[in-house]
């Protein structure tokens, strides 16, 4: 079934077309939800809510952009709304202020599996994780993130900086990326 046929079927509320669309995009979208969620159950709740929105708002899709991107935006917004219902999330993005941290540039070896990276991201505090997901992976600007999360733009920037540093530390601890050069140098000097 072509994407156009799926779209037309969904517009007519045909269950077969809806199922086809769901089968095609739900694995990727669940992974997106999983990066934002506390656990898999929450991720499935987000996915469910997101797909209902996708089907109900199908008529607003303009064929100009990529369909997957459109679905993904709806899913991400659903995840954010889901998280914002949680008071702990609101506190965590607002209160935590990152200090000025020098961010290192590290490469992620190709041998590292996607699941390992995502598991590391999920170890971050929810506020950091959300900003990192939105900025580094979903490609939103800090201004947009600030609007989405109802925080200051500067908070988004500092959260991201801190999140990235923490993620790198986790990746290093898990031997998924090599230790930082400075660190290595320092260790060498001590010895």
């Amino acid at each position: 079934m072509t994407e156009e046929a799926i779209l037309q079927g969904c517009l007519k509320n045909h269950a077969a077309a809806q199922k086809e669309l769901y089968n095609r995009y739900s694995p990727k979208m669940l992974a997106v939800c999983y990066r934002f969620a506390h656990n898999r159950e929450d991720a499935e709740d987000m996915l469910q809510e997101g797909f209902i929105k996708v089907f109900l708002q199908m008529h607003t899709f303009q064929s100009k952009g990529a369909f997957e991107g459109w679905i993904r935006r709806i899913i991400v917004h659903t995840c954010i709304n889901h998280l914002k219902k949680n008071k702990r999330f609101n506190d965590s993005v607002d209160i935590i202020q990152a200090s000025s941290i020098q961010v290192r540039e590290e490469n992620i070896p190709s041998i590292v599996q996607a699941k390992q990276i995502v598991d590391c991201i999920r170890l971050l505090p929810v506020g950091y994780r959300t900003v990192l997901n939105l900025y580094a992976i979903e490609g939103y600007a800090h201004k947009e993130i600030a609007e989405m999360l109802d925080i200051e733009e500067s908070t988004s920037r500092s959260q991201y900086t801190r999140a990235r540093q923490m993620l790198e530390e986790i990746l290093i601890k898990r031997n998924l990326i090599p230790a930082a050069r400075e660190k290595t140098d320092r260790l060498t000097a001590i010895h």
Partner: protein
Amino acid sequence: MKERNIYGDEFEEQLKEKTDQLKMYPSDKVWNEVYSSLHVRRRKFIAGMTFLIGGILILAGTQLIFPSRNTNPKTITAKINNPSKPAAAADLHNFTASGFATETRDNDGDQQNRDGGPNANVPFLHRSSISSGQKSGTDEYIESLPEKIQNNGREKTVQQASINVAVHADATLSMTGLNEEEESSEINPALNRISADLDPEKSLTQLSHIRNDRFSWEIYIAPTLNNHYLTGMNYQTAVRPIQTAPIMVVHFANVNGFVDNTQAMGYEVGGNILYRISKNISLKAGLDFSFNRYYIKAYNSNQSQASATLSSYFGYIADTLANSNSGNNLVNKNPQHYQNRYYQLSLPVGVDMKVAGNKKLQLHVGATLQPSYLLNTDAYVLSEDYSSYVKDAQAFRRWNLIGGAEVYVSYAVGKIRWEIGPQVRYQIFSTYRNSYPLQENMLNYGIRIGISKSIR
């Protein structure tokens, strides 16, 4: 959207690349929930409407099939008490006629003669102590009783209430048999009045006044003639020329000049519950199902891509529908008649007014506003260049508002009132969404045939 080249940063680029590789397969529960939320809501709506229609039909059917079920003997207890001898002069009056029984009890519940005493089966006033010689307060009470009953809006309680009749007992008449009734009539005109007031036939007449119930139901069917009117300029023509459109479309864009549609028959069925708020005015609400259609004359052509542009009022393109055209609107050989069918459920809410007539024959006018829901979206819409018809669910507006008006004559046959008269319904909003450049408004004329009955 982006304030930077987000993937210019190698780390972020790699992070995105890696995370996008992850795929996770949701449990079946997720799809089941999505499916049920998309389809069960609609099913619930249809089930609810069916339940409502079913309820009205069952109620109507019950009233039609078993109209006399409620005509069991009614009991009115009339007490005739002598104020000076409230307990001792207690008498029992028991009569039965035409399925109607009136029973008079004394205060201490003496019913010794009811089932077989010496004066049993005496139709009226078989043992009574009635005063004569003066016009008592009792007389006034009795005389005014029917009025009081009629003026009482709570008739149902009156039907079952005890009617206390106080009679002065300056003189006592002892009536021990049927023949004595005549004697009593001669002796005391007041007694005649009492007898008349307690006479079963008269009582029934009075009760028919009493049972001016406020609620009634009606069901109806109406064969209708369906017209539709297309209006609105094609905004797209003002923005850019349509390559495939005839030159007239580009310059004049008068859609009615480019379609060949003819009216067709449809029908409408429904039911209402009416609540009388005054002598002549009732409020009504109910459920209505209508099937409307009209014919489209079109010409077969090779399948091609036709589009119906959904434009905003400001001219920019909001969305475009693209579909295979089913019929070509331009003149060609082999004309075909397609049908546009609309199935709608409506909830009429309005007013019904009796403008003239008597109990038997009445003239009514009514008006309703009807929120309606379009059940199907598989009708044809005209493409943006008026050259083709396409089927696109996206163009249709599900919820609409219909205005209805009717004039009818109602004629009472027994407890049922038959109704017949013309009606008109106009769909206030366009069949299509606002973003579609054309507006289609349906206008249906019909003859409404129905029955109505008071709810007891």
